[in-house]
């Protein structure tokens, strides 16, 4: 197995040719509500793109339009040079893995994997060989003659993967493929899918509502909300420099302080909360007046002595300290909010519940957004 590259975003896809293009694609079922609104998106060859968003955000509809199970109301999708609107699903040659695997219950595992090869009229000997190789690839050579119902969820998922890959499609779509698995198995499968993606040089479009999954697996993530892509960037940029409040709160954990903008100095705004605390924050998605939501990641919140000398400090009382093994989560009641701070578990003095405490963060880590574009 290949060693995975440390951070997906570091792979250079800037010069890869484009494989998929969404051009002004809209989808509506009743003519009034748009599930997807004039969407433009390009996917590079060899890219692992994740469509991330809450349910009903349009991400699955996009995937289904790409697969051919939904037809765009307007706009066009191109796969290479083909306009897809004239191509039925079976002529697109796109591998697809479904949420609940969609294995054929009346066929054995080998027959399941052989299916895409048989409908392509491949001769028996080659089919047999390819099925064996596909089963080896997902490390389940012993289950060929079993029925899907005799396999565990994780095994079924790997078979679904083998079936979608066996006919060597250029593009593979995955619709929340790990949603039904437990946490440990899910993490293991994330790793396997990622290494398959890299060793086979596939282009993958992956739909999930699990932001951790999106961060760990993708080259690029498109965050969907209300039928729009709110931000499309590599995981690091998306996590550290979210372009609007929704992306900031949906991807990763965050603390949110609402207030009114009371001053602006270049790229720094001063936000005064309802309790009267003045916070200095980087102006990302705000003007020089009106209300703002200041978003701070828990790992950027400093507690106690570490907070002294920071730009923004707030007084609060420790409500709870939760031990997570590698880190502590300190819940602080302040400003009528539950503020979460992440601390190394090896800190010598851990705060205790009930302690009156001061916490703070630097201006660079406090990012001010338009509250209207923050709520889900």
């Amino acid at each position, binding site marked *: 197995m290949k060693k995975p590259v440390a951070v997906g975003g570091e792979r250079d896809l800037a010069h890869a040719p484009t494989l998929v293009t969404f051009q002004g694609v809209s989808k509506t079922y009743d003519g009034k509500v748009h599930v997807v609104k004039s969407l433009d998106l390009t996917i590079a060859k060899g890219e692992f793109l994740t469509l991330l968003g809450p349910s009903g955000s349009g991400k699955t509809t996009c995937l289904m339009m790409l*697969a*051919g*199970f939904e037809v765009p109301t307007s706009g066009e999708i191109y796969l290479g040079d083909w306009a897809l609107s004239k191509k*039925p*699903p*079976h002529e*697109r*040659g*796109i*591998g*697809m893995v*479904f*949420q*609940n695997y*969609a*294995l*054929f*219950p*009346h066929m054995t595992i080998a027959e399941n994997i052989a*299916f*895409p090869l048989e*409908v*392509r009229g491949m001769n028996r000997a080659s089919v047999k060989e390819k099925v064996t190789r596909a089963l080896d690839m997902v490390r389940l050579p012993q289950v060929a003659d079993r*029925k899907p*119902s*005799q396999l565990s969820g994780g095994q079924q998922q790997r078979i679904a993967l083998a*079936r*979608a890959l066996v*006919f060597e499609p250029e593009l593979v*779509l995955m619709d929340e493929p790990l949603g039904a698995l437990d946490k440990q198995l899910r993490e293991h499968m994330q790793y396997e899918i990622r290494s398959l993606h890299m060793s086979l040089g596939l282009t993958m479009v992956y739909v999930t509502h699990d932001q951790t999954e999106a961060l760990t697996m993708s080259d690029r993530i498109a965050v969907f909300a209300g039928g729009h892509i709110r931000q499309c960037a590599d995981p690091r940029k998306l996590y550290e420099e979210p372009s609007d409040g929704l992306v900031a709160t949906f991807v990763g954990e965050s603390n949110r302080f609402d207030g009114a903008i009371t001053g602006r100095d270049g790229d720094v705004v001063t936000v005064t909360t309802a309790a009267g605390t003045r916070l200095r924050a980087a102006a990302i998605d705000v003007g020089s007046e009106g209300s703002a939501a200041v978003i701070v990641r828990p790992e950027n919140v400093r507690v106690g002595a570490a907070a002294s000398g920071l730009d923004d400090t707030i007084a609060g009382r420790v409500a709870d300290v939760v031990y997570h093994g590698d880190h502590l989560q300190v819940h602080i009641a302040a400003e009528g909010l539950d503020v979460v701070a992440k601390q190394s578990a090896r800190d010598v003095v851990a705060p205790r519940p009930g302690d009156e405490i001061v916490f703070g963060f630097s201006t660079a880590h406090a990012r001010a957004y338009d509250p209207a574009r923050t709520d889900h």
Partner: protein
Amino acid sequence: MTDVTAAERDLVRAHARAERGRRWTAFFLVAPLFVFLIFTFLVPIGDMLRRSFMDGDVASVWPQTVAVTRAWDGSGEAPAALWPALAADIKASAASDTVAVAARRLNYAIDGGRTLVMKAARRLAKIETPPNGDWRAVFADLDETWVAPKTAAAIRRASGPVTDFYLLAALDLRKTDAGAIVTTPEKDRIYRTVLWRTFSVSGMVTLFALLIGYPYAYLMTRSSKRVAGVMTVFVLLPFWTSLLVRTAAWIVLLQEHGILNDLLMRIGLIDHPLRLIFNRVGVVVAMTHVLLPFMVLPLAAVMKGIRPETVRAARSLGATPMTAFRRIYFPQTLPGVAAGALLVFISAIGYYITPALVGGADDQMLSWFIAFFVNDTINWGLAAALGVVLLACTTVLSVVYAKIATGRRFA
């Protein structure tokens, strides 16, 4: 287990006692239902089926004759003791008005048996003692048939207590005087034709129910809850409609100057009205109509369990819509097809009233003949034998159904 302590033994005993008590309680709770089933179901059906092989008619009214024939091995001339016994029995039964029972039974075994016996009953009443004490001569004088060897053999075969006569007759078979089983002559054959007709009508009804029911059930599972509800009501409607109303409706639709014929003639598709009712067409149409729910409901139940993603997966893997249906969807519906087809077929082979009302003389099925023999000719033996044939077919099919229902389930 030698080291079981006394305390443990007591515990085991107490537990066994408690469980025994619970079992008895359970038994008493279901006992009334059990008794009800025995008296309303097992006993009447068992009694009816018994008649297909029991043969006590002659023995009950002619005890002396039967005593003689049962002692005889059936070969050669009839024993001399037969004639006085027969004469005494006929006279006694004529006096007690039971001779008709024997006459009816012998009519099945001997051509013109009823006339033979009734005539003898009238004549013998006037003869106290035969000339020379020879009753055989008296019978010979009555009718030569009486003294023919095959008559005595026929009486012997009708003496009971058991007979294979009815069951053989139900399959158009019979025993020769020599005891060999042969097929009834062509002109007298009837039940094989009826059995074949019963199966072919049922088969056609099953086929049409499948052809209509399959797409209907598919539509039902794919529709919204409300539409599916309405569709269920429509398919169940024939169940809730009175048989006569339903049949009358079909007659209105299908008769010579009915709605359908009028319509077809008006649009110029036909010149003369088609004969659509009181024949096979009418029977198949009306039966398919009423049996459709038995096809649609199991099909819809199975179809509801099929994940639509499996068809989508097949399409994305390169299958045309036709291939996806043939290789992925249809095989998954097979348990429903089998269940529906068997339910419809099993119900159809027992159909009686619908063919009687909308069919012609050549469309009557096995059940009609059972009713005929019970109500019109009082030949319960043959009715029971036909019932056995029908029950045997149904049982075989039910076993097949049970096998399919339990064996082919996907987890």
